[in-house]
């Protein structure tokens, strides 16, 4: 009996080791673009939006920078503005109380290969909290359950319903998109991939329109 058990275990172990390593050489380096929206949001009812020219930055590589500014940020945020304007929304300054508030965050994590629960970044050390000009609200995210295996870089844009925040006492994220993937050592390449990813995020979100 022991021999049968030993032999059976040996054969099964050998067979499980017959699983081939997949050939990932053809996979593109373009960012994976994922997006999600609130089921209840009526995107055509909003008119104005605001997005800052600076991008919040979160990293685990001991950098003290918490924001990204300069040409890279302007190019990336400029693409978001182009897309929003093309969808019929109008950019206004923040004190003018826009209907939609867009927040951008870039995350760079080095040497990580952990499966995180959905929205893992909200609890990430250094992730910016949210107290707006008019007060603090508990953010609500309409994310369905998803699992991401996170490794190197993410660019996240969250869009909040500012118009109804006071009456609802709830700062609701009605749309967010996330660009994920391995980062290049060249900033220009990362910026180009991010711009391409933003275009794709809008393309796969046709409901975002005035």
């Amino acid at each position, binding site marked *: 009996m022991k021999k049968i058990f030993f032999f059976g275990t040996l054969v099964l172990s050998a067979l*499980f080791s*017959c*699983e*081939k390593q997949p050939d990932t050489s*053809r*996979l593109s380096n373009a960012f994976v673009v*994922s997006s999600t*929206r609130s089921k209840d949001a009526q995107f055509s009812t909003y008119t104005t939006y605001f997005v800052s020219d600076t991008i919040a930055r979160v990293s685990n590589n001991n950098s003290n920078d918490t924001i990204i500014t300069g040409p890279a940020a302007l190019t990336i945020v400029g693409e978001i503005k182009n897309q929003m304007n093309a969808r019929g929304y109008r950019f206004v300054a923040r004190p003018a109380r826009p209907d939609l508030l867009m927040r951008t965050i870039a995350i760079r994590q080095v040497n990580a290969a952990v499966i995180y629960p959905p929205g893992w970044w909200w609890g990430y050390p250094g992730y910016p909290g949210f107290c707006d000009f008019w007060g603090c609200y508990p953010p609500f995210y309409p994310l369905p359950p*998803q699992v991401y295996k996170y*490794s190197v870089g993410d660019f996240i844009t969250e869009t909040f319903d500012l118009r109804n925040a006071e009456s609802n006492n709830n700062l609701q994220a009605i749309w967010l998109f996330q660009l994920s993937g391995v980062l290049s050592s060249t900033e220009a390449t990362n910026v180009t991939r991010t711009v391409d990813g933003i275009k794709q995020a809008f393309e796969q979100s046709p409901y975002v329109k005035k």
Partner: protein
Amino acid sequence: MMNMKKVISIVAFMCITVSALQAQRLHNLYGLSWEVGFPTGDFVSKPSILGGKVEYRHFVKEHISVGATLGWNNFEEYVPRKTYENQDQTSAITTDNQRFVFSLPITGDFFYYFGTHGKFVPYAGIGLGGQYAAHKAYYNIYVTDDKGWGFIARPQIGTLVNLGVTNPAKLILAAGYNYSTNKSDVFRTENFQNFWLSLGISFTN
């Protein structure tokens, strides 16, 4: 004297023939085969040459064997960049991906043989059991996977090819169909099915 020699020769020939025929009465078969799979589902559709199986058959009667088979296969396919939406269309993801299915069927088998002598010994039968299957999608540097067990049925036909009257080695040629209940909620597949062809070598006693 001449007649006596003839009789002895004939008896000796008959003895050898009878013992050879008795040697063809199989008791056990141990086989190792290479298997090519042709998946029929949506998740992967590209044929795979990276399959195989080991099997044992015990002949309970001259025409009937029961036994067990342990098989495996690796299906893989590259899918260009595309957008996928969830069912209520509130979420979408755009990426290319390398899809992969590793299957490991383990079955108890029943075979009926149409004849026992001759160069070819055709048979038909079915294997029933369980199958472990791992569905995976690799994209950028990420992987999403879904693993589990299901029930499997492997109806099949084939033939043993005798390589000589007293040679215990025989070739096995076979073709069949795998139907398994391995489903994946993540990839929205209800089952996993594939046709297959196999070529193997076996040793009998």
